[in-house]
């Protein structure tokens, strides 16, 4: 049996599946249910400073987009940090941690960008027995208008400064949560590292308007006729999150910095992909908010079964394994040549590959052969773009087949060069480096 116990910057949990700081972790009742369901850890919903708590809107807080059969693909929210009293949260956190000593309990914190504010709250959190803290530099709505959340996360200097305060005033591990609402995710990650963070977690939610109510001409969710941008999450954001995780994982300046991967993790497979791109564990929210806490059973068994099937013994065998294979476009092998191949036995003859190729790409797939509907790749036109594979409704019906070295590429009339060659040395590249004489 694969060992999926997780040790993330010294914080131990029975599995790498944590619930992200969000509505599911707002109070003891929910967190107790989550732990009973099997979650390895939770990041408690973000605490604010002492005093009257924030208030939330009392109308709709969430908007969504859906796929077929109303499957939820993307969720956005305009909820703020916890709207419960700080001491109520702290008391509950302490009790829950006592009840569940083997689970990870992290406190998410967002207070004003002043040293005194952080200095004041950190001892209170430490007293609960929490395993670590996560700095909420990501929340893109509401709190950012008040100079917190993403407003901090978008300024690397602030990140470094706050992380430094935290490392100074607590011995708890510090996880810095990053906002994706920034051009280059490496900058805030480098700043967090410079400030001494133990880890980063990403992504927080993405600025978004999920839809517009066309009867009222107002964004959804609409509160009394008006709407505001919210934070986007769920399966739709996973590709963005994976890229940002990979960028930090392969950046020489942050290489090796522990990462807690967040963003659309819905199945064990999503989690494995985050781990492969360098995450030490994952945090989940939307999937739980869509299906309930039980989904963690699928995640645990799926990850474990896959690891058993592939011979991976522990999470360390997986984490970062795909990072060396993430590269810049300019280093891709231009001598690698693949052609689409349609399995005629699997083909249901919907014709989508043909029309996609014919209307929008390279006119490389037939629609009629000898008077009957027949879809077949014309290798002399196929550039190997993979569009047909992606639009085909039948899994594994169309596959990309690499040409062997020396084989004739019917499109170019040239034989496949067995040697690796990329853009940096390509003759069409005006910047091409001259081969050493």
């Amino acid at each position, binding site marked *: 049996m694969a060992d999926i116990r997780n040790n993330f910057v010294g914080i131990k949990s029975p599995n790498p599946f944590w619930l992200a700081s969000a509505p599911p972790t707002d109070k003891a009742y929910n967190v107790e249910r989550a732990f009973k369901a099997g979650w390895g850890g939770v990041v408690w919903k973000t605490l604010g400073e002492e005093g009257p708590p924030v208030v939330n809107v009392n109308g709709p807080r969430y908007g969504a987009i859906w796929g*077929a*059969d*109303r499957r939820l693909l993307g969720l956005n929210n305009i909820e703020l940090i916890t709207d419960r009293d700080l001491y109520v949260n702290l008391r509950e956190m302490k009790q829950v941690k006592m009840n569940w000593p083997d689970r990870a309990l992290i406190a998410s914190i967002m207070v004003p960008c002043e040293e005194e504010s952080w200095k004041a709250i950190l001892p209170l959190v430490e007293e609960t027995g929490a395993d670590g803290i996560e700095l909420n530099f990501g929340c893109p709505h509401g709190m950012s208008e008040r100079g917190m959340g993403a407003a901090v996360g978008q300024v690397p200097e602030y990140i470094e400064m706050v992380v430094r305060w935290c490392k100074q005033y607590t011995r708890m591990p510090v996880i810095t949560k990053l906002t994706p609402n920034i051009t280059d995710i490496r900058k805030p990650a480098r700043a967090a590292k410079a400030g001494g963070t133990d880890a980063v977690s990403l992504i927080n939610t993405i600025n978004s308007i999920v839809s517009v109510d066309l009867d009222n001409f107002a964004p959804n969710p609409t509160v009394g006729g008006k709407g505001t941008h919210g934070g986007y999450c769920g399966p739709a954001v996973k590709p963005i999150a994976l890229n940002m995780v990979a960028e930090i994982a392969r950046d020489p300046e942050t290489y090796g910095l522990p990462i807690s991967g967040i963003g659309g993790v819905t199945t064990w497979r999503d989690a494995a992909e985050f781990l492969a791109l360098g995450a030490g564990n994952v945090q989940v929210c939307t999937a739980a908010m869509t299906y309930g806490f039980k989904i963690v059973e699928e995640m645990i068994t799926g990850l474990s079964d896959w690891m058993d099937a592939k011979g991976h013994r522990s999470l360390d065998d997986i984490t970062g394994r795909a990072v060396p294979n993430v590269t810049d476009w300019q280093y891709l092998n231009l001598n690698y040549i693949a052609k689409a191949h349609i399995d005629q036995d699997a083909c*249901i*003859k*919907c*014709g*989508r590959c*043909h*029309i996609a190729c014919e209307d929008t790409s390279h006119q490389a797939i037939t*629609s009629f052969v000898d008077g009957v*509907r027949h879809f077949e790749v014309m290798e002399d036109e196929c550039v190997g773009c993979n569009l047909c594979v992606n639009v085909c*409704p*039948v899994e594994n019906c169309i596959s990309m087949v690499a040409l062997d070295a020396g084989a004739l590429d019917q499109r170019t009339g040239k034989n496949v060069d067995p040697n690796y060659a990329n853009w940096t040395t390509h003759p069409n590249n005006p910047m091409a480096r001259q081969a050493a004489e």
Partner: protein
Amino acid sequence: MGRLDTGIKASRLSPAEYAANFSDLHPRLENHEALVASDRCYFCYDAPCMTACPTSIDIPLFIRQISTGNPIGAANTIFDQNILGGMCARVCPTETLCEQACVRNTAEHRPVEIGRLQRYATDIAMEQGKQFYARAASSGKRIAVIGAGPAGLAAAHRLAVNGHSVVIFDAREKAGGLNEYGIATYKSTDDFAQREVDYVLSIGGIEVKHGQKLGRDFNLADLTGEFDAVFLGIGLAGVNALRTEGEELEGVVDAVDFIAALRQAGDKGSVEIGRRVVVIGGGMTAVDAAVQAKLLGAEEVTICYRRGKEHMNASEFEQDLAASKGVILRHWLAPKKIIARDGRVAGIEVEYTELSEGRLVGTGETGVIATDQVFKAIGQTFEASGLGHLAMEGGRIVVDADGRTSMPGVWAGGDCVVGGEDLTVAAVANGRDAAESIHRALLAGAQPTAAVA
């Protein structure tokens, strides 16, 4: 009276049972069901379903319109090709047409529910009284349409759209043809056929003359002089005879008459049905009669078909429907004689059959099935007079691809023409295409030419 009384009796069931038995076979999809069903469409290129539809409805487009919350637009797409799309959604044997062609069958043996989605869209548009067509400026041309069935209505509508004035002559009290008189009650509930006729006629410019029978009240020659063109959509008015002893007995009924009477009966409990019923035939009419006999409370209903299951004209779906209602389907049995007792039907003697060198022959082995009532459903025939010297072939009217008959200025379509498919949807296609042909001919101003000499 009770459900097991012998003989042919009315009121075998309770009012609640009649109501349940003759309710909609496939109710309209709810909004959510329609979204789920429409999501399954792959929006195929050169879609096979569209090719399989005799009226070539742009099925991928209308389903995509449903999936994006635009059922009105979907209905417009449907009606553009088939103004009787509402009835076709109910009665088309989709399992042998569009849904058989659906590529989903290949991967998962379950097609997109095209028929039910079509009904969803057309029902919504018709309920809202949504009209998609306005008449073109009057052409000053008058066209006579004989027969207010699917072919005639489709022709009349398209002619009206093109600005022509249309007079429809129909022998019956109500328009609709087989849609009104020939379809099982549970396929067209709530007087849908008449509502659809009203919807089609609301375009304006179409006058319907009821009780006008060709050959009795007027002849074709009367119309060709008076009108600029004539369209014949007269269907098949006759039925084949069994030609067996006892056919004249009380209790031997044409299935089409039974089906029509049942459709017209306001109170289904007033329709008499035998405790035991035998239906002779293997087509849709046989199934419709048998199933409805069962729904009226007959204890035992048997379909006897003289060939094998694989030869039945009734689709697999229809056969399964009959079986699910408790109808017994028997094959390789031919009627020999209807047996009387006290002047009424008491049973039917049948003989086993087989194919011998490609010919159907009796094996000599006979038996008797006790029955109170025998329905004949062995096919309809062309039966019309007053047509003059119209070229016929195999008992049906000869037409070209545009529906032109041998007589200048006369077009025909639907079941009455050679190659007629006994399908509502095919009749609609014929009527529509003939109307376009008439329009082109009138526009050209030339004397329409005959297709066949």
